[in-house]
């Protein structure tokens, strides 16, 4: 088990290094010169010597591998640099903004898991009934909905027409619980429904598949009541592919969060990344990408662990 963990950790580190090198390289071929975000739009007043000096100050004149190595060695010790735009330490910006994104992502994840798995299992058990039809077709529609259009519809209905929920403004749940929940419901729904639909479809089909397995027939041949067959024998076995999908969802949620944060004016790192990208603010872009990558890598690790918890065949392999 320890060895398994070490191995996965080793893989995770390799993936992390590859991601950082890829993004770092990509950023350096951006047509947008970072000098503009350092000196502001108006660079006319600078002589070429001054520009070169500024570039040197930021280490932008060194060869690319050296720059990368400098960045990496600073990054691992927690020095993530200062934003080109406002000179603030990136870590401080992240500290302030990350909690909003986590709150958004977790809420969406919970909605996805709770709605998705429960409706999926019920649809499988009530296969070919109207409940199954309703659940399956709503999942199909939900999968075709762009998050931002769903958000638009939700805003229109709940905020503009019904005036029940606020559109803008947000708070953290431990600071202002009531307002935090009020202002988060719509973003959570907008971001969570896609996941719910995916998980619904996966858990339905995997439940159906499990119910056709030999060991389910064995359980029935033992006289196990159908309810117990489902809960004790089928559910856990059919969770395996669902867990995989769940791990993959994290990436989608983080991606979706970017748009949702922009729309609902949530001051999270998604919104920050859009500004940083348009301004070629390297340190911020690197930090945001690395945080997302780490979140995804950790999610995959957790998925693997969950897998081995659920399935003894992996645990003892």
């Amino acid at each position, binding site marked *: 088990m320890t*060895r398994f963990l*070490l*191995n996965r950790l*080793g*893989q995770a580190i*390799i993936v992390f290094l590859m991601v950082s090198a890829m993004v770092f390289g990509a950023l350096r071929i951006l047509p947008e010169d970072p000098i503009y975000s350092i000196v502001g739009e108006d660079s006319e007043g600078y002589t070429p010597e001054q520009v070169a000096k500024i570039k040197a100050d930021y280490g932008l004149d060194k060869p690319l591998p050296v720059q990368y190595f400098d960045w990496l060695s600073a990054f691992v010790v927690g020095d993530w640099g200062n934003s080109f735009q406002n000179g603030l330490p990136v870590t401080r910006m992240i500290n302030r903004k990350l909690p909003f994104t986590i709150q958004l992502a977790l809420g969406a994840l919970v909605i996805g898991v709770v709605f998705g798995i429960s409706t999926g299992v019920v649809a499988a058990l009530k296969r070919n009934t109207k409940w199954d039809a309703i659940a399956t077709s709503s999942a199909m529609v939900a999968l075709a909905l762009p998050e931002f259009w769903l958000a638009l519809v939700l805003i229109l209905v709940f905020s503009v027409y019904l005036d029940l929920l606020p559109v803008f403004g947000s708070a953290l749940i431990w600071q202002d619980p009531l307002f935090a929940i009020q202002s988060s419901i719509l973003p959570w729904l907008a971001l969570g429904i896609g996941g719910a639909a995916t998980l619904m479809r996966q858990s339905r089909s995997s439940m159906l598949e499990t119910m056709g397995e030999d060991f389910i027939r064995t359980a029935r041949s033992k006289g196990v009541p159908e309810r117990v067959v489902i809960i004790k024998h089928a559910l856990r076995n059919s969770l395996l592919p669902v867990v995989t999908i769940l791990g993959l969802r994290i990436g989608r949620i983080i991606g979706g969060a970017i748009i949702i944060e922009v729309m609902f004016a949530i001051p999270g790192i998604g919104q920050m990344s859009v500004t940083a990208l348009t301004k070629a603010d390297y340190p911020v872009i690197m930090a945001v990408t690395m945080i997302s990558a780490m979140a995804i890598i950790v999610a995959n690790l957790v998925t693997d662990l969950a897998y081995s918890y659920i399935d003894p065949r992996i645990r003892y392999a």
Partner: protein
Amino acid sequence: MTTEVKPVLEIRDLKVHFQVNRGIVFVRNKGSVKAVDGVSLKIDPRETLGLVGESGSGKTTVGKAVIRLVNPTDGEIDFQGERVSGLSGGALREFRKRVGVVFQDPFGSLDPRMSAERIIAEPLVTHGLYPDKDERRKRVRDLLEIVGLNANMSDRYPHEFSGGQRQRLGIARAIASDPALIILDEPVSALDVSIQAQVVNLLDELQKEFNMAYLFIAHDLSVVRHVSDRVAVMYLGKLMEVGTKEDIYENPLHPYTKALLSAVPVPDPEIESGRDRTILYGDIPSPTNPPSGCVFRTRCPLADEECATTVPPLREVSPGKNVACIKV
């Protein structure tokens, strides 16, 4: 009759060990599976050698190593007097032309996306035989008739054939390039009893007609007795006993051979009621961790301390009859 006939296939001290590695970053060698561990066999022209054994015996791996679907760890393989172990590229392809293979699973051994014609023509195309399209088509139709199928079925796809017919297709493909040897890996064990007999009969006819040698790998001892001239018994990667089929079936010497034969029930209630059954205890040990000394000793009724330390060599007890046991 053993006066200097050059054997079709001669295997000397063949070893196939699979490394079991764990991990991608921190690679740890978990030891090796000795799937085949020092097997020597020879097959004469027009002869059928039956290779029997249970799961984990390595019998299938021997066949795969000959045709190089797996790479031997050690040992030599000669085909018609030429060294073929270690061949690669064009020379390997030339050797593969002269050896046919028939696999167990009639559902899995034919590419579902290819018509019968393309399946049978593939070895011809691969080896540049019958380059003329019409001649090739004629050859395919001939082959279909030879294996007892209707030549008009050539544009059908595998799923349109029954299990027995699919196995006939597999045989047609194997004999397409006029091989001197066919490796038959459990060719009938996935078939229904009544179809098995048809395929066994077909194989018998083809061997006589085309003068091929067979390496017949199977676990069904009754079928092996029927088709084989000589029989080799494997257990956990090693040969236990080799001899003519009369040697093996009428006068088995190795305790494993005896137990194996007595474990097979015969379809005759009168004989069965009078047969004594030697039931072996325990499971077949894992090939990752085979017993020391004689690999069979953990289940052997004759085993003692000596068996745990001595690896019994395969020794000739009478001409052509070899046994690997220190107790007989």
